[in-house]
């Protein structure tokens, strides 16, 4: 048995109680996370108001983290950033890192908001037109 198999076996070890407990916990945790970040139904037994508050907290953290890794994006959108991100996040679960989330959000905003003052700047941010110009480096951590 390889070292990795040995590692994976440890969680089971022939312990039926543990196997059943892991499966039950996996099922319940998956249902809760789906409700919190993927628009799933509130799992049985939870207080819907508490789930909503927790979901809003997670969405706000995602929004603020995207704004921190891509401050230029939040600056371009200004006051529109919060409401737009809220709409975007409600329809798009996060699949990659926060940089990827920022770009996906920008693409979504361009596709869904036709006449806005920030369109030009946002398109420029996504696809800098003139690659010969030295690109400004942003303070990305």
């Amino acid at each position, binding site marked *: 048995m390889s070292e*990795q198999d040995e*590692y*994976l076996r*440890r*969680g089971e070890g022939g312990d039926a*109680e*543990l196997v059943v*407990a*892991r*499966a*039950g*916990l*996996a099922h*319940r*945790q*998956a*249902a*809760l*996370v*789906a409700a*919190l*970040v*993927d628009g799933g139904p509130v799992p*049985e*037994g*939870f*207080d819907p108001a*508490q*789930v909503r*508050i*927790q979901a809003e*907290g*997670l969405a706000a*953290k*995602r929004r*603020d*983290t995207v704004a921190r890794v891509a401050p230029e994006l939040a600056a371009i959108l200004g006051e529109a950033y919060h409401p737009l991100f809220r709409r975007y996040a409600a329809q798009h*679960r*996060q699949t990659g890192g926060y940089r990827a989330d920022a770009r996906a959000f920008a693409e979504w905003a361009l596709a869904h908001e036709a006449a806005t003052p920030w369109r030009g700047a946002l398109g420029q941010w996504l696809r800098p037109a003139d690659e010969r110009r030295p690109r400004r480096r942003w303070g990305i*951590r």
Partner: protein
Amino acid sequence: MKSVGSGTPRLGVGIGWRSEIDTAVERLPDLDWVEVVAENICAGHLPESLHALRARGVTVVPHGVSLGLGGAELPDRGRLARLAEVAEAVAAPLVTEHLAFVRAGGLEAGHLLPVPRSRESLVVIAENIRIAQQELPVPLALENVAAHLRWPEDELTEGQFLAELVERTGVRLLIDVANLHTNRVNLGLDVTAELDRLPLEAIAYVHVAGGVERDGVWHDTHAHPVGAPVLEVLAELCARTDPPGVLLERDENFPPPAELAGELAEIRRVLERRVQHV
């Protein structure tokens, strides 16, 4: 580094090191130790600031946020290995993580979520902790989390659950007094009773952080100054035990260095009052 009790290092008063405030942290007077978010640093390329602090004898403790030891899955071996590497790179006396899960069913929550505190999940989480302990080169301590929701499965309070985990695995505790306050406001937790349920001798250190109350909900923002209610929980804890370490967490909306120093001084005053009362 002096030791107390069963080998728990005496850490003193510290602050969460963040790259945005690295020079401010380096200049803080009387700083004993720092905590670093383990996922934000790379064992092979430690920030110069951490080297400088270590050279001065400031202890560095890695604090993980992505293991999800409270999850149904086995802890990820790669993540454990990276945490172990960081611990060794900074010669940490211990590492810390959370009693929380962060992903399930292929979805990342992006934050620390409370676990169902049932007998069933106790079996799983105790096993996850044992696995982590085997993979890590130094002792592990687990932190109580801030929550906005409770599980219908909850049979134990967080304090009771942590006490069970200590008993089953020997894991140490990181008690976040701001999280206790958060759960008091949001979920009606009886903080005094909860402190009575904690195995105090297992405490490795204490977290202190600021937050804000909006519409009756406490948000543990780490972006506001530490307020009186959180310091009162710290004082309540210190009336029961002498914690080996206390750490101020600030993650956003960083104030001028003098304000951070002032908050640390405030924490020291709470600890000194404890000494006077003994």
